[in-house]
């Protein structure tokens, strides 16, 4: 909005300008219509979440709510346990993030800053691991967690998230760290700093922007995971919100307003992240493809 385009100001005279105006107006209208259609599913969800099923049955989908049924949210929050599911999601996501960022930045530092045997091989192993369909890990990981006594604990999910996202995080961090000029590090090395000290006192602070972008992106990924929660947990009381939602659909089959209200509540944290950390989020998305 601040970037008011120059051509607009320049071409404000003559019939050509009028045509241009009409053109651009048409373009805006078309674009707005398209965008609104695009967002229609979200509007539908919002609309449904504040109504009752009886209301929809009686008056049809496209009608104003006869009553603003805010209790759908209350029911989803308490009775349908979205409250519990959300808490679980945070308990799983936060340690996962810390773990993966720490471990990945360590390996990224090694991969970006040292020439050694197997460097490229390890790097490629991480990249390949990121891109492979993780479904192939389901059975052995299920077996492994069972063996380790981790089945049906938060720990099982946290470990697999850290391990699986390591590949992507390492990939991104390594590519970022390679762009840090070597002179800065060499200077520190000359000062007699140990490698580990260089890592956390120079490299980490320099990497903060990319760490932030990565953290934002990974937050939404881990938060939105569904499959692992489905496989590695059995207690309803441990389920993160994505898996909990799928259960809601099974239990409140005929109550779409409640389900959509639950879905909206479940989305709040990621929307929050998106709204306030949008820059990092977008940056994170492009980081992975970048290089």
């Amino acid at each position, binding site marked *: 909005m601040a970037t008011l385009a120059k051509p607009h100001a320049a071409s404000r005279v003559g019939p050509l300008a009028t045509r241009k105006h009409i053109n651009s107006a048409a373009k805006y209208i078309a674009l707005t219509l398209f965008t609104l259609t*695009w*967002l229609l*599913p*979200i509007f*539908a*969800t919002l609309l449904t979440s504040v109504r009752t099923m009886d209301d*929809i049955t009686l008056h049809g*989908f*496209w009608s104003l709510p006869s009553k603003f049924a805010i209790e759908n949210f209350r029911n989803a929050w308490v009775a349908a346990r979205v409250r*519990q599911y959300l*808490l679980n999601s945070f*308990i799983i996501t936060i*340690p996962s993030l*810390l773990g993966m960022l720490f471990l*990945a930045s360590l*390996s990224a530092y*090694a991969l970006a800053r*040292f020439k050694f045997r197997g460097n*490229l091989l390890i*790097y*490629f*192993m991480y*990249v*390949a691991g990121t*891109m492979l*369909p993780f*479904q*192939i*890990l*389901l*059975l052995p990981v299920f077996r492994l967690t069972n063996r380790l*006594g981790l089945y049906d*604990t*938060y720990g099982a999910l*946290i470990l697999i998230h850290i*391990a699986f996202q*390591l590949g992507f995080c*390492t990939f991104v961090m390594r590519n970022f760290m*390679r762009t840090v000029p070597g002179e800065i590090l060499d200077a520190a090395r000359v000062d007699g700093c140990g490698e580990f000290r260089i*890592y956390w*006192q120079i490299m980490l602070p320099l990497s903060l922007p990319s760490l932030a972008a990565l953290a934002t992106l990974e937050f939404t990924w881990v938060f*939105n995971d*569904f499959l692992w929660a*489905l496989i590695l947990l059995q207690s309803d*009381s*441990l389920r993160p919100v*994505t898996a909990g939602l*799928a259960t809601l*659909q099974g239990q409140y089959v005929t109550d779409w307003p409640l*389900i*959509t209200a639950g*879905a909206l509540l479940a*989305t709040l944290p*990621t929307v929050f*992240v*998106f709204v306030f950390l949008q820059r990092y989020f977008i940056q994170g*998305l*492009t980081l992975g*493809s*970048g290089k």
Partner: protein
Amino acid sequence: MATAIKSQPLREPLDFAGANFLAILYAAIILVAFIFMPWMWTEIKYSGARLMSDVLTGGSLKTFSTWQIVFIPVSALLALGAGLWGLMAPHRGALASVLAAAIGLMGLVYYIDLYWVREGEVAEYIRANLGAGADLTLVALVGLVAQTVLLLPPVNILAQRLGRRASALRPPVPQKWTPYLFLLPALALYLVWIIGPTVYTFYLSLTDWDGVSTPNYIGLRNYRILFSQSALTESLGNNLRWLVAFVTVPTTLGLGLALIFNTDMRGGRWYKVSFYSPLVLSWPVIALVWAWVYHPSKGLINSLLIQSGITSDPPGWLADRNLAIYCIIAAATWRQVGYVMVLYLAGLKNLDPTFIDAGLVDGANRWQLFRHVILPLLAPVTTIVFIISVIDSLRSFDLVQVMTRGGQGTRVLANYMYIEAFNNYRMGYGAAIAVVLFTISIVFVGLYLWRSLKDELEY
């Protein structure tokens, strides 16, 4: 305290990195103990995290802890933050250390409450049954408070000297080991949780494992059965449909939108946000939203079709075997477009404007400019988009699982595998499907690696 230290400039400089480092270490120990060790009794199942969750939400174990347990993870996270801050901003090291100690005191409230304040049968039961995690946490919290002694100049200097002495005594780590030491923790985890299981899947696919009994080696029988099943053809076909849809629709639409929004247009930001906002939604949420859109009698599309009088007999969408898979793919595409758009926008931003200006000077029209200048310049992004689309389409699982559970002819390989393994208890057979999925994916992953290998070698 910090100022007091600063007023003694004559001594050798104080270094608080040790204190901050200790704070981080203790905070990490607390987190690990809280999540991976039994807070009560002896099973990991009863970790502090679990007890906290139950206390907060009135779960079944709520009586076995108190709400003060919330202080434990909170103080660990805060101490972690304080320590990191101190490390990265060394001139604030002393302050960070004090902060960490104060945070440690907050965590100790749980124990103070448990041991000195609370009385009664329940408290006694808790005290008697506290597990290893709680004990370790107590030690770490005390350590968190105690690390402040390093702020005292004599102790600090002593510690520094001891540290130097110790590193002098320690046999020097050969330079060439350093990278491996950095890699070790992550690599160990990766080997156990990713590489090992991948290999193990290959083994399982050659067995008749049913999830309970020990797997028996049966050679290639799973594969022989698999390749004779119409279910495999169905799943592969659906994956292929998904793939074709993914490399065409979101790519063109995303590129088109990126080209539109790349110009400085009024309100462009809001349009952009609208298109990439679906990216923050999880797949299950998208599945629910779209299931409601497709609902045959009350959903968005059909009520629109009926009320506007376009048709009185609208299709059943997910209920229609011929349409169901496309309905699901459409929902997936809806999310993917925003992603592709973001990638192209970033690519466009990095384009050198001089090329475009040169094209304009040559008198090229818009289409020519796009076709002969912009598109070739975007080729690297297009390759990435292509590969990401392929990989994402092979991974698809969640939407199908939530929307149709693989019914209505919508199975993709991942669902087929999930159903066979976890529904029909044919784990070995499921592993065989996973191997097929792996084999297809590895082709594209290889393609990507080969491409980046060239870049890497040039580097």
